[in-house]
């Protein structure tokens, strides 16, 4: 089977069989990432462009390595050095990159829906590497891949997501993807960081960390976006860590084998104590490795759609 759309804009429009295909392909790709000779020629002659309107280290490097491991030309366009700084519109920038022969454009943008606008206006495939507060589909996929590696199947898994749900595209993609794949998602956040109606996406809101993690297989912390603190959505980092941070005491109710995840970068001591981040059950570094594998799978599947 093949992916149905030319673009990966969000998990909301991927069917379960497509998600399975991506995760299965990623398992093969992981073998390449973890081998000594990280080079295959699946993407030889293809051009992959990362167009990042927001700062990012891990996601951009992850995509770039994914493309390079498979032999593609990978070019980074960063905002400050491009004509974007001169006021060029997203559509014009996209069309310019498109006619230069891009096969895949990977976009990160602070505005929700920007990848959708780009996708409508270019021939190239578009991958959403995070748009505003909307979706971060490759993060959702790599998180699901990481869970599947341990548990084999996502059906029936109990997953807790704790933190700044309001601003989090990671939370939205995970809730949508996990719910689609049959997992049960519970969420917890300071009430000022809980977006209205989020439960319609399939997540259950829990009142405390203790209740959220109770009997869970996976617990995911979200980054507190301290840079958004201008809006004073919670009183202080101290108060956040005291009432909404995970520590060894308030997470005891999770299952013994529970995995601890975080999309990074972590604010140590605020969202989670270092003892959790660095503990045996933490798979935060596996998530990063798996990110490369999942992105290789997407690049492979998107370029293979037409053959």
């Amino acid at each position: 089977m093949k992916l149905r759309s030319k673009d990966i804009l969000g998990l909301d429009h991927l069917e379960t069989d497509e998600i399975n295909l991506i995760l299965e392909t990623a398992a093969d790709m992981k073998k390449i990432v973890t081998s000594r000779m990280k080079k295959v020629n699946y993407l030889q002659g293809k051009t992959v462009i990362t167009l990042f309107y927001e700062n990012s280290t891990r996601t951009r490097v992850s995509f770039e390595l994914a493309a390079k491991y498979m032999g593609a030309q990978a070019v980074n366009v960063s905002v400050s050095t491009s004509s974007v700084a001169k006021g060029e519109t997203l559509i014009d920038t996209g069309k310019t990159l498109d006619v230069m022969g891009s096969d895949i454009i990977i976009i990160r943008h602070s505005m929700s829906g920007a990848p959708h606008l780009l996708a409508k206006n270019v021939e190239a495939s578009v991958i959403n590497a995070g748009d505003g507060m909307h979706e971060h589909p490759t993060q959702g996929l790599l998180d699901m891949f990481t869970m599947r590696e341990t548990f084999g199947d996502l059906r029936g898994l109990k997953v807790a997501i704790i933190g700044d749900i309001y601003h989090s595209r990671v939370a939205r993609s995970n809730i949508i993807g996990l719910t689609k794949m049959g997992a049960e998602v519970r969420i917890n956040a300071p009430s000022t960081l809980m977006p209205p109606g989020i439960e319609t996406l399939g997540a259950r809101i829990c009142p405390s960390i203790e209740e959220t993690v109770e009997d869970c297989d996976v617990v995911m912390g979200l980054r507190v976006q301290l840079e958004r603190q201008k809006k004073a959505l919670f009183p202080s980092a101290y108060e956040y860590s005291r009432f909404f941070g995970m520590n060894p005491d308030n997470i005891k109710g999770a299952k013994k084998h529970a995995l601890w995840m975080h999309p990074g970068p972590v604010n140590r001591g605020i969202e989670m104590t270092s003892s959790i981040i660095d503990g045996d059950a933490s798979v935060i570094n596996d998530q990063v490795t798996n990110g490369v594998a999942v992105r290789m799978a997407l690049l492979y599947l998107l370029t293979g759609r037409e053959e």
Partner: protein
Amino acid sequence: MRLLITHGTIVHADRIEKDMNIYIENGKVVMMGQNIEPEADQVIDAKGLYILPGLVDAHCHLRDPGFEYKEDIASGTRSAAKGGFTSVACMPNTNPVVDNVSVVNYIIEKAQKEAVVNVYPIGAITKGQEGHELAEMGSMKHAGIIAVSDDGKPVMSGAVMKKALIYAHQFGLPVISHCEDLDLADGGCMNEGVTSTIMGLRGIPSIAEDVMVSRELLLAKYTGIPIHLAHVSTKTSVELIRQAKERGVKVTAETCPHYFTLTEKACLGYNTLAKMNPPLRTDDDVKAIKEGLRDGTLDIIATDHAPHHNDEKNVEFEKALNGIVGFETALALTYTTLVDKGILSLSQMVEKLSTKPAQILGLDKGTVACGKDADLILVDFDNEYTIDVSGFASKSKNSPYDGYKVKGRVMATLVSGKAVYTHTAFKGL
């Protein structure tokens, strides 16, 4: 010039008269009756058509001066005429802002030369619409403004709004309030709720409107001076206005066709054509707006005609400008959604689109009566068609209604007895 319109059904705000002839001389209605047949230079056969007083829009943006690439007085009034509007009141958020006599003069002089319908400028409440110092309302009134508003922006300071009400009242100028608490709106770009959460967009909560509606109602009560509330979009605002009216507060309120035909779901897929301020709300709000129109809580329907260039809409949702073109769809949307569905009678529709807005603005318009200006429209309400934005007379095409099936087509628009628009299929003229 003597004109006779024959065999039409006249829809007044309070009654309907069938098979009527209307005799017009020098731009005024002189005689009306079933069998009158005075000699005329021209006869228009209105058999099978409805004759309505020309529609009066209390809220539009003609974008002139400053944004002529979106619309100007010539194109905007042609668009109005095509939609059946014979009088339009244009908001002052032009560039420069209508906050002084010279800009008022510019609009009035340009309208005399280029407009095909009556144009009535609205002046700003505050200088530069910045919400701080009162604009020169008295001088602008003498130059020709008919109301004041900072539309597009709220007057955030209650103290400034109180002064504005008192001062404008002395000059007989109605005050039109754009009700939005900017702190609560918090930079949002669509209604706050499930849909904004799904789309990952910052929401404007309905209380951003409701809080300000409450303030204006209290100010109107405290000062005893009437206030007009622009583009009401929420259920709670409708309830607040209803209660205030029951207690005798002098308030009038308007809504727009988009608030009773569309919900926030129209934004899905990052459809910037559905982006406006106030934002499209929920099913519950739409229901409440319809009920408010039915029971008279909402006095009038205005278009909030807000043309924008495609380049200002074909961008990221958050960047896209607010508003939709409205003149050419308002009557058909109102008829199809409200009259055809039995929520309003034809007469009530005429009241809300013509008679009452004229009253609120203090214009001697909005009626079909002897001695009055012959501002009339001929409408075929059985004419069913699909809205096609490419045919709009407006310079801009930013409408979410492209492809909508509606009923009710303006066949001819007369301003002071002169046909300023006729539909190509109209054979009566």
